[in-house]
């Protein structure tokens, strides 16, 4: 089961919900957006940070409204710039009632234009933070300012209901839900860790988890709002959501949707890896600059190492075989590693002189290192830890 990009399709496990996924190229510049057509509302989940994507969203929602006029809910999975910047930029037909919905902490970060919590300070072009009002605040700690529903001009109201969270392994995810008509509903779970304001959204058999799957990434952990304890607890809680087997597919904030089984495996592996991330240095300009230097050094050293190692094998081939490479008994996919490093080198070269955030190169470097590591026999890299080396390069 998958979600096809840029087309309407029935939400898996639902009868009357349709979804139009806009799956952006994975980057920290702009997120995926999921547009959902429900009987009582149109949902725009994470509009992102790309003007082009905003135009697309506006067009798609406008067509859907022409079929059936409904309120539009813009929902943010968290307050990061790449998910939220365009939250007030949709161009919709006159008279459209639009409400924004997010975690209370996201609402506060956006209202206060907090550049650290929204990660706006990561981008060299100094983007403005979207300060448009959040009409529906979820999971407010004191409950006083939490929305119990969203009211619209015609007197219509979408109730936000609290329900008892199920306890699995003593881990509970705080939960809200919104009825969307025809027996359909949106379940909202508080899933902090990547940020304090992270929420995950469930429609039918589809679970949208924002950036949870990237929360332990060495290039992302330590961003303002990141919290190790919360992350571990959230990963336990989300794992329990898969227990009933009625979630079929997961939509991350970046990249393609994946099966629930694959996402569960990913999150479990991540939970193991995240266990050690107890003393992560705060991600600030200095740390980003240090990580970028480390990434550059990794690239140069890995290229030199792989080139010399493969060169020695080729030199042996020269003497062992009359022609061609023959087959040397080396269990390393050097060609695969070479392709990965070549791609990364070209990416890193293209970065120079561009306005791409340094964090992008760091994340690409981590990805390349992981890819190389998978192609390298485990018996030859005992004690290596890509995660550890990127999280604490000075000890690496």
């Amino acid at each position: 089961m998958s979600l096809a990009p840029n087309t309407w399709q029935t939400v898996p496990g639902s009868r009357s919900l349709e979804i139009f996924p806009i799956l952006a190229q994975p980057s920290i510049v702009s997120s995926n957006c999921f547009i959902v057509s429900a009987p009582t509302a149109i949902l725009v989940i994470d509009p992102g940070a790309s003007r082009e994507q905003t135009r697309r969203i506006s067009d798609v929602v406008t067509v859907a409204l022409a079929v059936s006029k409904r309120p539009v809910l813009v929902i943010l999975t968290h307050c990061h710039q790449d998910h939220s910047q365009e939250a007030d930029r949709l161009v919709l037909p006159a008279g459209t009632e639009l409400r924004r919905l997010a975690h209370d902490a996201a609402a506060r970060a956006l209202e206060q234009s907090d550049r650290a919590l929204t990660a706006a300070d990561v981008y060299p072009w100094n983007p403005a933070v979207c300060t448009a009002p959040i009409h529906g605040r979820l999971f407010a700690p004191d409950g006083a300012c939490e929305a119990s529903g969203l009211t619209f001009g015609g007197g219509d109201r979408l109730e936000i209901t609290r329900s008892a969270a199920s306890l699995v392994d003593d881990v509970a995810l705080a939960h809200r839900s919104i009825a969307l008509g025809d027996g359909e509903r949106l379940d909202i779970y508080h899933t902090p860790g990547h940020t304090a304001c992270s929420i995950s959204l469930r429609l039918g058999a589809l679970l949208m988890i924002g950036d949870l799957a990237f929360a332990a990434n060495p290039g992302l952990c330590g961003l303002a709002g990141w919290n190790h304890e919360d992350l571990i607890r959230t990963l336990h809680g989300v794992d329990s959501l898969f227990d009933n087997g009625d979630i079929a597919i997961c939509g991350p904030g970046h990249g393609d949707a994946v099966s629930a089984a694959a996402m569960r495996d990913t999150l479990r592996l991540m939970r193991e890896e995240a266990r050690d991330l107890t003393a992560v240095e705060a991600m600030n300009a200095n740390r980003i600059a240090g990580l970028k230097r480390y990434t550059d050094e990794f690239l140069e050293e890995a290229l030199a190492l792989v080139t010399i190692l493969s060169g020695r094998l080729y030199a042996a081939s020269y003497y062992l075989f009359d022609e061609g490479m023959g087959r040397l008994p080396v269990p390393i996919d050097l060609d695969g590693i070479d392709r990965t490093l070549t791609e990364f080198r070209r990416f890193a070269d293209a970065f120079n002189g561009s306005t791409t955030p340094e964090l992008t190169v760091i994340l690409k470097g981590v990805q390349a290192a992981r890819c190389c590591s998978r192609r390298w026999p485990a018996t030859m890299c005992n004690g290596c830890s890509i995660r550890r080396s990127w999280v604490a390069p000075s000890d690496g």
Partner: protein
Amino acid sequence: MGDLEVTVERLAATVTLHAAGPVDAKTAASLHEPLLAAAAAPNATVCLDLARVPYMSNAGLRVLVLAAQALRARDERLRLEHVPPHIENVLSSAGFTSFVDIVA
């Protein structure tokens, strides 16, 4: 960093290939065909000019070995000209200097 361009110059009994650009997993095929063709041709000394090659990866070394093997069949050695120091270091560390000639 762009693509690899290879131009072939024939002068008397010498074929010189001038490479310009990185020789890596994406571009090595552009060097493979003309270099192997030159190596397979009889009676010509084959030179590869690396003056404008910023770096050479695993894929480039493979092409050099294949060319060196083809030349060995007729008792010739591949000549590499104007090799940048960092590439010469790699070639030296990998043991290529025992079967290719590096000339200024």
